[in-house]
């Protein structure tokens, strides 16, 4: 069968700054970024919902913009910065304004789509800090939620936009972390 007879050059070392921490790991080239995060770095906040890059549950920021981490190879993220849902709140647990808005507007039920929704929202509000309801909906079309019917989510994104425009709170992507080396 394909792939098994051929001698592989084997593992590749990658180095990625995840939520402010520089980490390195040896990966098979076929390893997806989401697998690197979940299985090798233990960053299980980012989740998987499909194979076809439709659901958006795996959304993270790669070098500052939202991507589906199931559609990026770990080797392609070598040298990059990845921000996940786990780096968004303050270290003391204080929610980021977007997370807080999801909380206050009942923008989540089971929470499975939530990491992706929130990370996509970070990117969306960078693209468009004051979106209309229709713009929010269009901006979230790559993230599927089966629980909420989206209304709470849309409300949350608009509330977050308002909160962010009145506060100068920095996102974790902007926050500077003391880079430390972690090898998994």
């Amino acid at each position: 069968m394909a792939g098994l007879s051929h001698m592989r050059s084997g593992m590749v070392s990658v180095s990625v700054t995840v939520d402010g921490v520089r980490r390195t790991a040896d990966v098979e080239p076929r390893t997806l970024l989401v697998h690197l995060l979940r299985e090798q770095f233990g960053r299980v906040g980012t989740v998987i919902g499909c194979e076809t890059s439709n659901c958006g549950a795996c959304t993270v920021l790669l070098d500052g913009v939202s991507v589906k981490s199931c559609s990026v190879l770990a080797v392609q993220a070598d040298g990059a910065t990845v921000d996940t849902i786990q780096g968004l709140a303050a270290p003391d647990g204080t929610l980021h304004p977007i997370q807080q808005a999801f909380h206050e507007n009942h923008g989540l039920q089971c929470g499975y789509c939530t990491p992706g929704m929130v990370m996509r929202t970070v990117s969306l509000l960078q693209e468009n800090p004051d979106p209309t309801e229709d713009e929010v909906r269009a901006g979230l079309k790559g993230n599927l939620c089966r629980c909420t019917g989206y209304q709470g989510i849309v409300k949350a994104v608009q509330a977050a936009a308002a909160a962010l425009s009145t506060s100068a709170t920095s996102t974790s992507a902007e926050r500077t972390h003391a880079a430390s080396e972690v090898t998994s």
Partner: protein
Amino acid sequence: MTTAPEIAPEQTPEREVGKARLRKEDHRLLTGRTRWTDNLNLPGMVHLALVRSPFAHARIVSIDTSQATAADGVVGVWTGEDLPEQGAMPIAWTVSEDLKVPSLLPLSVGSVKHVGDVVAVVAATTQAAALDAAELVDVDYEELPAVVDPLAALEEGSPLVHPDLGTNVCATWGMDSVTLGTGGNVEEAISAAENDPDQVVIRRTLRQNRITPGFIEPRSIVVDPTAEQVTMWSATQVPHILRILLAMTQPIEEHRLRVIAPDVGGGFGGKLQATAEEALVLLIALRLQTPVKYTETRNESMQSAHHARDQIQRLTLAARRDGTITAFDVDLIADMGAYLGILTAGIPLLGGFMFNGIYKIPAYRFFCTDVFTNKVMTDAYRGAGKPEATFGIERMMDELAAELGMDPIEVRRRNWIKPGEFPYATVAGLTYDSGNYDQATDTALEMFRYEELRAEQARRRESNDPVQLGIGVCTFVELSGLAPSRVLGSLNYGSGGWEHASIRMLPTGKVEVVSGATPHGQGHATAFAQLVSDELGVPFEDIILIAGDTASSHKGMDTYGSRSLVVGGMAIVGAARKVVAKALPIAAHLLEASPEDVEFRTGRFEVKGTDSSVSMTEVMLHTWLCHNLPDGLEPNLDSDYTFDPENFSFPTGTHLAAVEVDTETGRVHVRDYVCVQDVGVIVNPLIVDGQVQGGLSQGIGQALFEEILYDEDGQLKSGTLADYYLPSAVDVPHYRTAYTVTEATTNTLGVKAVGETGTTAAPPAIVNGVLDALRPLGVPDVTMPLTPVKVWSAIQQARGSQEEVTG
């Protein structure tokens, strides 16, 4: 007009019940600290990959596992023949005496019955290695003829899904108002109507599309075995039921199996199952005596997790020309798929109790034929049989209105049960405790600006606007709060319908609430804390929920059928009242008063007529200290309560949809959606609204976009999210919701239920709206999902046949 949830006047703000409390569970879900099953990584854990049938029906000639066994990292490979200890998967509902139960083994032996049936399992040290080796398992199949269409399956000479059963008919089940003693003879009433110029008889065949619950978290299972105890984590709605069913069918005893549903990413009925995969992970873990994990892919989920709906409804409605219904006859063909899940055969039956809707129907009959086909089994999905029934009756109400040239609201009004008529014994044998359909409908009509929209509709019709406007109506009642155990017994259901709760009073004044209702997104931790806070006077913040683990929440019936609040909540209230009863003599002792003189009010025990009192918190501490308690009294406030409901609960509502149909493209755009619900007393308006909105989007998905498609050979054509269209935020409207409250009289909280209302009401509301727009063009029906191509084709066809008539 209010678009936010209204709070009943009797729900005073000091009470927790009625407050829009933000959810306790959110923080971990928002910060990625969630405990999904697939997050678990145990030392020594091996991973499974499953080899699934690519054929809808085939004989397994041989399976060669040698190459796979020899592959890197492989710990073991098994076929069905290699697992003699495996037991057939259980069903929980023996609906009829003629029920045929095919054997569903975790690992197929001899043959496969649908695409996705499991034929071999590979265990390896990594998931990647397991997947690689699974491709090396060489299965030789002899393809057999498959039957995909349920009507074809009923024909003479059809291929048989299970030749050993000798038929594709799984079961038949019926009921009628004569036998029930609730009304007249349907056949007589219909033939009388046919011969009565003052009556109309309407016959329609409607179709319920096959869809998937579509939880976003794929199912995942981890089993950690020791000789003493075996722990299973599963992304299931029903850890308690699963434990019992696995113990009854697989080589594990109940007391040795602990099942944990950690955080679960949606279920909607789709995770209300005892699956072959769960049994398989258990079996392999028992074989290997090491932790084992399996997480399905979306594609596997689509070809193995149960589907839903998939009915053909042949309906006959008779009515007088003034709109009054005289008889309703329901003849269903329900597609079971290839096997029976725990409730598969019973799902259509649940609908049997609801096809009469909110109406007074003098003669009623329901008959259902359950049919096997070479497809994935169907089973519960949000509403389970009742959305199908609501669709049937509500579509027929619109057909009746159209036939009589009446307003669809008016037709309904002529037939529905009036506020003064509750409790009302229905023709289907249930008793609706309360409701006020007039109030909900009037509120909805006003919010919707019904008359204005009708005027706009007329204008568009007149001007031949390419975009036509339709108004869709659905007035409905839901059967919720599953379920009174005696009723279940009478239906041959294999368990009770009670729920259990325990309350543990901690020495520092905090409270643990243990519930057998297992949450997966519904906000149990929040709503239950609100209930307990009111009962015990303990602050909301001081209450925590323990659920979803058969070791700590030892007794339960889990979450489905809109039962968590109306059944589970009542169990909690029962337990809380027992706590108060136990605390009272201790408080009296501490107050040096006689128990008769002490009363409990908002967290304090007070000696009547004095200002002497002691708080619940103090009683909790003193009970723990046990230094100074009444003689002979058990030093314990903790209490258990098992609540078995006396009746179902009946949430209702009126939904109105304004849909624009672009007749050039066939696109349906839901421009406005108003729903006024009566879910009884509202515990948390935020959560209630969320439940409604989520259900509505699923209902709109069924109506407009979603369909599981098989080709003639039984190949699944919609096996990924790229070809199964789940609605995104763009595809659903902004809902306008409001609430009217008639309290349930069947429980002391006055609560009804809310979970399944959206999926129940939205499909008929949307389809009625589209047909309301298109009927003047001559379009009689469009089957769900109403995709643009189907709507456009229906318009074309109507135009074609009209040209034939005129030309």
